[in-house]
């Protein structure tokens, strides 16, 4: 076996499955070398006292992240809980304010008793645009027609939880929360 590699028994020592005394005499030296390696592990705690304040400040800022690093979410986290679907193109390309677009709002909320969408298009009235249960798996939806243009919205669950659309672009609403953005 290669001199560069630890003997398998020494690896078991490193794993904590054996003690130094369990090793044959000819492996004791290697065993001690291995234990010295483990003794050099720094287990001291690291404290980050500035993090809470910095996080809360970052939440107030708009979602332009100046310290963005390229990173990938594990697939398990990227659940599509809601989506807004165009059901048609605007009638006219040259008059962005006059065309109407049909839009479907969808939210997966199996435990909810009541879901609506409130936004710039309905004066943020949580009673104006209720969603209905569509299908059996806790999915709620509503289809409405909106003028082409800029809209912001959130879902209102059980009349009290104002929840932005998890998969839509989000902007700071000026009150410490987020609004979802719909650009038609």
């Amino acid at each position, binding site marked *: 076996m290669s001199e560069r590699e630890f003997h398998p028994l020494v690896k078991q020592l490193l794993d904590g499955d054996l003690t130094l005394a369990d090793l044959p005499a000819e492996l004791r030296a290697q065993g001690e070398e291995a234990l010295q390696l483990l003794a050099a592990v720094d287990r001291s705690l690291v404290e980050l006292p500035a993090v809470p304040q910095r996080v809360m400040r970052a939440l107030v800022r*708009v*979602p332009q992240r100046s310290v963005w690093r390229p990173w990938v979410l594990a697939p398990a986290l990227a659940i599509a809980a809601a989506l807004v679907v165009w059901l048609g193109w605007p009638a006219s*390309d040259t008059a962005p304010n006059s065309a109407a677009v049909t839009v479907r709002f969808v939210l997966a909320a199996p435990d909810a008793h009541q879901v609506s969408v409130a936004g*710039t298009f309905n004066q943020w009235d949580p009673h104006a645009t209720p969603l209905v249960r569509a299908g059996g798996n806790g999915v709620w939806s509503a289809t409405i027609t909106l003028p082409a243009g*800029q809209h912001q919205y959130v879902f209102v669950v059980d009349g009290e939880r*104002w929840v932005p659309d998890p998969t839509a*672009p989000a*902007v700071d*609403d000026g009150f410490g929360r987020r*609004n979802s953005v719909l650009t038609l």
Partner: protein
Amino acid sequence: MITALALPLALLGLQQGIAERLAGRVPPDVAGIVVDVGTAALARGLPIDPLIQKAIEGSAKGIPSDRVGAAVRLVAAQLDTAAAALGEGGSALRSDTVAIAAGGFALTAGLSGRDVALLAKSGAPIPAMITGLRVAGTLAALGVPGAEAVALVSATLQAGRPASELLALPGRVQAEMGKGVPPAQAAAGLARAVAAQARHGPPPGRGQPARPPAPPVP
């Protein structure tokens, strides 16, 4: 409080209009702030719709009046910044209230005044510019940094692409992000694709635009 006698009739009518839109939706003290801020904003050529919207939103969300007032003032300040930035694209753009509102949204989403000014200078016709500003803001709301958002929208505007293609940009960036591409890279990749098509593809015009090739995934 405003002294009614000092104001011309048209302005009085306007203030009544603001008050009517707010009636029943915001408490009186919020209405007062919006009327004050809105009157001044209108005198500067700014749209007042975003102010009214923000006040109604805050009240609907149960936010205390002083915070709603602060948010309304912030929107007014953003509209001021947007208008100034748009001015770099000419006086017609500077006086278009829909464009200013779109610029204000872009600022809310995280673009800077400089970003808005850069877009304004792209020289696109006003309707396209309005859509471009909204889309740039939406891209920023996805996490695309200002520079890349402006570059992508500018490239699409300058290639003469139709509004539908502009409006599809955030969805395409989101699709790339879903594959793990960071927003900045996704936007940059799309911008390259737009520029490449502009150089080698068919001339822009009516009809179905050809699908540009998918940007390379790192």
